[in-house]
Structure formats: structure tokens, C-alpha cells
């Protein structure tokens, strides 16, 4: 069953097109990374999915229209964002009380067990906690909710490496169970890449690439070309080329890996490299059409 289904999802702010009619389908049990440059429309897409903003086009999340039924949807959807901050005045114990009071799928014991592993005290107010601790608290609350869809919008922004690693480790080890679905947007692509099952690159309100992580492995090859074979490699039409020390690094789409192996060292590109390649080929492509 698909958890999210969008068709022609469109959102404009005045003359600015944030989402330019995107089609999207996310199946249950997937961990989708929504990656794109600043202003690409990631947050707008997530806001539409969460029922925080009206939109044009068709959108179904867990068989509900998010804009019409946000509060019912939120029984099954959890959300952590850099902008959805916990109120500074609330005490940890009050946050637990409130969640237990209003959320039908909240397991207080689970949240308390998670918090017991941290240095966060129940009487503390959010304003007294460090940024890392606030994220831990939010994560403790969210992980205790038996949600079907978890939306993470830059969840680790402004955290140090240790906190970021802890965040994703707990998420993967203690939360994800293959029946839940997770969507995550982040600029720290390297940190989520081993987490994801699916990748979606988005730019200027359009989806420019959507594939599973397995497909990336079979489809894209990065070649560190041997200087003698550079010309031969270029004949195979790399989608992107860059210099790394004294080697040229070429990225190929759907070219036989065995054929490339003869021309240098091959490996699967990282999401970051793929992202750069797709974005720059997009830009040069559109500049060419403009010219």
C-alpha cells in the first residue's frame, strides 16, 4: 500500500513556483531521502504532506487529504523539523504528560526509558537544555509514538557530529521496523546515505531523479580515469566530470561497469557526487536551451 500518493502537486507563492506539479508515490516501509538545493521545494512538499499548507493537485497521505484532516492525520504521522521547535517554557515531564494526554498512540514508558539513557531530567525546562538535548527529547517523544509515517525535515541542523550520529543510530536501531515509512530531507547527505532505501532529487519545484538505492548501484558508476584512457572514457558520454588531485573523475549513467573498469578505478558514486552531477547537468542543460 502506498503511504503517500501525489499527482500534479503544485504550490505557488505569488509569482514563485515552489512545487511545479510533482508526482510522487511512497510505499510502506521505505526510507526516502528528499535531497535538493536550498529553495528547491523540499520543505514545501513536506508541509503539504503534513497538512500545514494548502496546495493544488491531488495528494493523499495514509488515504487522507492532509489539508482537510490534519489533526486526524497526526494520529498516524510524526514530524521532527528544525523549525517545529519544542516550546521553551515546557518541562520535560509536562511534555510527556501532554503527549500521553492527547496522543492515542503514545507509549509513555517507552519515552521514559529512552530519556533514562540521557542526562535529561524530568523537571528541566526546554530552555535549560542544550540544543542536542532538545533534539534527544523530541526524538524520545516521537519514537514513543507508534506512527506509520515519520517526516524529518533537517532534523539534525545545528547539532554536532556526535549528536547527529546518535540521532540516526537510534532512529534506525530503535524505531525503524520495516512497516513504518520515513521521509527525510537534509543537506548532510553523507550521513543519511546508508539509511535510505529510496532517493529523490528535487530542484526548482521539480523531481529531477527518483530511484531506489539499489538502482543507484546498478545504474551509476564513478570512474577515476587513468590518464591514458581519459579520451576513451569521454567517448562514453559521462554525465559529469571533475578533477580530484591528478585524476579526472567521470560519472556515468547506465554504462557497463566492466567496460569502465578497463579505463581506471570504478566505484558506486556517493549520493553527494550524484547530486552534484545531476544538479550541474540540469543547470548546464537549461542554460543550453536558454542559449
Amino acid at each position, binding site marked *: 500500500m502506498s503511504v503517500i500518493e501525489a499527482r500534479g502537486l503544485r504550490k505557488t507563492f505569488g509569482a514563485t513556483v515552489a512545487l511545479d506539479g510533482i508526482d510522487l508515490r511512497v510505499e510502506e516501509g521505505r526510507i526516502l531521502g528528499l535531497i535538493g538545493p536550498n529553495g528547491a521545494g523540499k520543505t514545501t512538499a513536506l508541509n503539504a504532506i503534513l497538512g500545514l499548507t494548502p496546495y493544488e493537485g491531488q495528494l493523499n497521505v495514509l488515504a487522507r487529504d492532509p489539508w482537510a484532516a490534519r489533526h*486526524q492525520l497526526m494520529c498516524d504521522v510524526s514530524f521532527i523539523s528544525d523549525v517545529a*521547535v519544542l516550546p521553551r517554557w515546557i518541562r520535560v515531564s509536562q511534555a510527556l504528560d501532554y503527549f500521553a494526554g492527547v496522543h492515542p498512540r503514545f507509549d509513555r514508558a517507552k519515552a521514559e526509558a529512552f530519556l533514562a539513557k540521557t542526562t535529561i531530567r524530568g523537571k528541566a525546562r526546554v530552555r535549560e537544555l542544550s540544543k542536542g538535548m532538545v533534539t534527544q527529547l523530541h526524538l524520545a517523544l516521537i519514537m514513543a509514538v507508534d506512527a506509520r509515517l515519520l517526516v524529518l525535515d533537517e532534523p539534525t541542523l545545528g547539532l554536532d557530529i556526535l549528536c547527529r550520529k546518535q540521532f540516526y543510530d537510534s532512529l534506525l536501531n530503535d524505531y525503524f521496523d520495516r512497516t513504518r515509512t520515513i521521509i527525510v530531507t537534509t543537506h548532510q547527505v553523507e550521513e543519511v546515505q546508508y539509511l535510505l532505501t529510496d532517493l529523490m532529487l528535487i530542484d526548482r519545484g521539480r523531481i529531477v531523479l527518483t530511484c531506489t538505492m539499489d538502482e543507484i548501484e546498478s545504474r551509476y558508476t564513478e570512474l577515476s580515469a587513468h590518464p591514458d584512457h581519459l579520451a576513451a572514457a569521454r567517448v562514453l558520454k559521462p554525465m559529469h566530470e571533475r578533477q580530484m588531485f591528478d585524476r579526472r573523475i567521470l560519472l556515468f549513467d547506465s554504462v557497463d561497469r566492466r567496460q569502465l573498469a578497463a579505463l581506471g578505478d570504478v566505484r558506486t558514486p556517493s549520493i553527494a557526487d550524484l547530486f552534484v552531477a545531476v544538479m550541474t547537468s540540469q543547470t548546464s542543460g537549461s542554460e543550453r536551451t536558454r542559449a
Partner: protein
Amino acid sequence: MSAAAPDQPMTAHVDPRVPADKKLFLWSVRRELWENRSLYIAPLAVAAVALVGFFISTFLGIWESQLRLDAEKPGTPFDLVAGLLMLTSIMVSVFYSQEALHSERRDRSILFWKSLPVSDATTVLSKASIPLVVVPLTAFAVTFATQWIMLLWSTLIVKASGQSAATLWSRLSFFQMSLLVFYHFATAHALWPMPVYSWILLVSGWARRAVLLWALLPVLVIGALEGIFYRTAHFPLFVFSRLMGDAPTIAHGSQSTFPLDPAKTHIAPGMFLTSPALWLGLIFSAVCLLLAIRLRRYRGPI
């Protein structure tokens, strides 16, 4: 929301996992009390100061004439305390209302609240219930307790001066007075000024900053136009009297705005409840709150 009504066939389709609106509402009100501790601290502080003042004044003999056997009006210090707490409740409600839908946008926690299964209607109505129910009820409870302490203290003072306290008790008719104060809070300081509070609530959900100024602006503009063209100030005075609780809760003949003397006060709940001004005000409140609910759907952090 209405689907939860038991007499509707819709009930069968309501998701059983969605918590009842009443429960969500009560938790939302509790949340407001956590965030805004001044709602009960302010009246308690005022009452404490008033009590200390009263204790000192009895030692200085200021109220002595009022507490004596032949006192004309034994209630004066009691009225003073009730009046102080009414003023406090007005100030608390005004400042609460201007923050209510603004602070969650300012501190960006609105998206956190919206990530929970609580509807905008529940949220806005729980916030509206603060000036309508919570503040008047708290102020009444504090008034009641303070007056009790004052009465016991007066009894001690009167007894210490060798007189009988029975006269004080019978003259003061304490329970009647408390009932009157309750009636007054429920009518003049809850229902009557509700349109003003609802208006401020709506502006607090709309304005990016300076909520009170924006809320005041139309009153000032209309007042200025009225002043220029008619040389009167009916509109600003009307709004002010609404806020201050100048309601027709007492039968004609009594000029007081809050009950001074139970024996001479003739309450008129019928007149109050049938007054068109009350109902027009409540309709205006309902419109403001509906708009505030609609507005909150579209609102994010400022």
C-alpha cells in the same frame, strides 16, 4: 467534531483511535495554564498584597469605624478587594489574549503543536476559554478566599476590642456577598467583555507584531472619525465599558457597577440574559473565534 454527537449516524465512521474532543480540550487548557502561570499568580499576588495592607490598616485603625457595631457599610474593605481582583482579572485576560495565538508563532512552536492530533478549533476554543472561564473563576476563588480571611481577621479584631462579632457577621451577610461577587464575575467579567477578548485573540493570530496596537487601531480610528465629525466619543467609550464589565446585571436604581451592598442590590439576570447587547456581543465573539480558527490553519512561525 459534530460527528461525535451520539445521535448522529456518522458516529460509526469516527475513527476510535482519535481521542475525544473533550479530553483534547481539557489537556489544551491545562497546557495554557502551564505556559501562562501569571493567570493564577497575578490574582494571588494582588490578594496577598491586599491582605497585608488590610492587616496593617486594622492595626492602624483605618477601617475601625467600618468594623464597629453601628457601621453604616461594613463591607467597604471587602468591596475594595473584590474590585482590585476584578481589575487584575481584566489585565490578566487582556495580556493573555494578546499573546495567545502570537507567542506560539513567535517562538516557532506552532509547528510542534500542529504535529499533534489537536485541531485548530480545539486549540483556539481552549485559548478562548481562558478569559471566558478560567480567569473569572480563578479571580472569584481568590476573592472568596481573601474575603474569608478578612472576615476571620475582622472578627478577631472586633472581639479583641470587646464587642460582639455577631453583628458584623449578620450585617455583612458574607455568603450573599460571595454569591453576588460570583454572579458579577460570571456576567460582567466573562460574558460581557468576551467580544473584546475574542477580538484581541483574533488579532493575536493575525498580527506579526504589536498585537495590542493593532487591536486598538480600529477603535482609535473610529473614535477619531467620530470625534472629528460628531465631536463625541461614544465608540471608544463603548468598547472601554464592555471591557471594564459595565453590564446591565443589576436592576435600575442601583448606580454601582459591582455589588457594594447585597441588601440594596437587586440583581437582574433576566434583564442581562435577554439584553440584545449581550447577544450581539456573543455573535461578534463567535465570528472572531471562527476567523481565528480558520486563520490558524494557514499560520506558521513568524
